[in-house]
């Protein structure tokens, strides 16, 4: 087990190195120059050159690459070209914002998705089941940015129930603790609805089919024959087994916590990782692009690793020696 663990961790680090290296190469090959977007074109060429020197963009490829790798290993991600601040500080602000949105959404979609899936599988073929099946299919097929726009239109601009964007009307110091909390919750409702709904719909579809498969197993019939109550069969016998693949699903949705909210953040102007990444891409902010790739690529790899390990813990049949 330890050897397996060691091998997997080593492999993950190599994979992460591959991801950032490929990104680095991609940035070098891509046409266009970040300095063009950074500096007013009317500036004298010496000044443009000075900016270039300042950020070290003129050094040969291998030097830039090695110094970036060396910096990253020491926890220094460079200076953002756009924000003119250390990338680490930019991310330190954005990551908690994204986590606030994504953790709550993830919880929402887990609870709603599992409940809907179990409920509709338990009532298989009934009207309730059909309503759930059809509505989850539709929500699953909605473009989430469009859903966001429609919610904005109805609940913000027509009904004025919720604010249109941002995270809160002010800081804790300005509003006082209680009003800040209320305002934050009001700002969270719609983004969580968009992010949570689409996830919940997918999960409900998945849970329904996996529950249906398990409910047709022999041991469920045995449990029924023993005279167990339907509730106990559903939750103790069926759900526990249907939930095993959920562990993998959870592991695979780890990257979602940091990078899954891009669409929602753009629509609701939520100041998180997704916004930082998209703006970084649009303004060719190389250090920011590399750092966001490193972070979200790292989450993907970590998620895969954890999913594989946890799977062995939950289901002893697939434990690796």
């Amino acid at each position, binding site marked *: 087990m330890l050897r397996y663990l060691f091998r997997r961790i080593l492999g993950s680090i190599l994979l992460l190195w591959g991801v950032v290296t490929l990104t680095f190469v991609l940035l070098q090959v891509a*046409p266009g120059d970040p300095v063009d977007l950074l500096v007013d074109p009317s500036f004298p060429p010496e000044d443009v050159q000075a900016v270039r020197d300042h950020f070290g963009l003129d050094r040969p490829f291998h030097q830039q690459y090695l110094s970036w790798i060396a910096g990253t290993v020491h926890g220094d991600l460079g200076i953002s070209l756009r924000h003119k601040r250390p990338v680490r500080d930019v991310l330190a602000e954005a990551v908690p914002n994204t986590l606030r949105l994504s953790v709550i959404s993830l919880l929402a979609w887990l609870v709603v998705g599992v409940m809907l899936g179990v409920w509709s599988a338990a009532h298989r073929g009934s009207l309730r089941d059909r309503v759930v099946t059809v509505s989850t299919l*539709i929500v699953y*097929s909605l*473009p989430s940015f*469009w859903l966001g726009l*429609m919610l904005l239109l109805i609940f913000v601009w027509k009904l004025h129930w919720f604010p249109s964007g941002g995270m809160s009307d002010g800081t804790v110091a300005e509003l006082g603790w209680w009003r800040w909390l209320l305002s934050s919750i009001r700002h969270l409702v719609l983004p969580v609805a968009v992010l949570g709904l689409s996830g919940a719909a997918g999960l409900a579809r998945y849970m329904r089919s996996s529950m249906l498969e398990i409910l047709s197993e022999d041991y469920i019939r045995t449990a029924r024959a023993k005279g167990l109550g339907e509730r106990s069969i559903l939750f103790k016998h069926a759900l526990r087994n249907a939930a095993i693949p959920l562990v993998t699903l959870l592991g695979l949705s780890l990257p979602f916590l940091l990078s899954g909210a891009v669409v929602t953040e*753009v629509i609701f102007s939520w100041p998180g990782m997704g916004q930082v990444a998209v703006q970084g891409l649009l303004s060719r902010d190389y250090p920011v692009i590399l750092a966001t790739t490193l972070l979200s690529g790292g989450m993907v790899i970590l998620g895969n690793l954890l999913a594989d390990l946890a799977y062995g813990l939950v289901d002893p049949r697939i434990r690796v020696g």
Partner: protein
Amino acid sequence: MAQQAARQASRSVAPWCGAAGVVAALPLMVKGSGAGAWLLGQHGAEAALVSWISLLTAVLLLVACLLERERGLPVWLDDPSARLGLSLVLVLAWVALMAPLLATHDPSALGASVRSRFLPPSLEHWMGTDILGRDLYSRVVFGARVSLFIGVASVFTSVVLGLLVGGLAGFTGGVVDTVLMRFTDLMLAFPRLFLILALMAFFSPSTWLVVLVLGTTGWMGVARVVRGGVLQVKNMEFVEAARALGLPPARVLWRHVFPAAMAPVIVAATLRVGNAILAESFLSFLGLGVQAPAVSWGQLIGQGRDTLLTAWWISTFPGLAITLTVVGFNLLGDGLRDAADPRLIVRSSSRP
């Protein structure tokens, strides 16, 4: 007995392809007595071409129905949602093809005056007009072409790449397998949306670039499925027999291994088309996808974003079109998956 006969009748292919024939002719039929002018090319060569396609397809379908009355629907179409999915996809594909006949206005014709801007939906403009007075319904109809094309073409690209990589890895094995699958892992570790946005932002966006970028960032899942299938099939006796006959490896792979490993790929591909259409619409919404004068649904939503409060229709209708299309592909994919699942086939083929 009567019930059985009714069930038999409902499975006959005749009513379905009869309905398909009527739908095929509809774009031309709605022109009424003006249909002749369309067929004669008085509305342009492309319009004439699609008019003839509409007419001939309808005739062919109806004749085929009469000749093949006895034939039953394929087993996988027993499932009503699979039938609905297939119908949706076919109808939308038909709308895309027949766009010149179905559009009520020239999709890029500007409004006659300032007053024809931002008109709400009416009999003249079924989905209203946009900021330049262009007819939104006609734009949505023409947008179907680009959106469906990108969805299908990008998935086709990923499937070809996935077949190449997965097939080669599974069939050759050894070092080739290891290298290719590590590369697949590497590609999978990229946050896909970031990668797509990066590629679209760095190069100048166009319809073909969207296809290329979505295609080259979406093959990894297919490759894994193909490799698994190939590994499962390649040591079976019929493959060994093909090899023993001295067939070249490429032919063995293409003619004997792939067909046996293809079912899950087709299912995955169908389900991916929906995702590709969603991805394209987000890119075009951000302005990083399809560029004017080409029209795509996501781009239309983006154009309506700033005037959502005063002109809700501009973003709303294209979004509905996307949803309908993606629902269609998802239903079709689910139906195909159920059909490909051997456990389920046993159940549905036990016919009376």
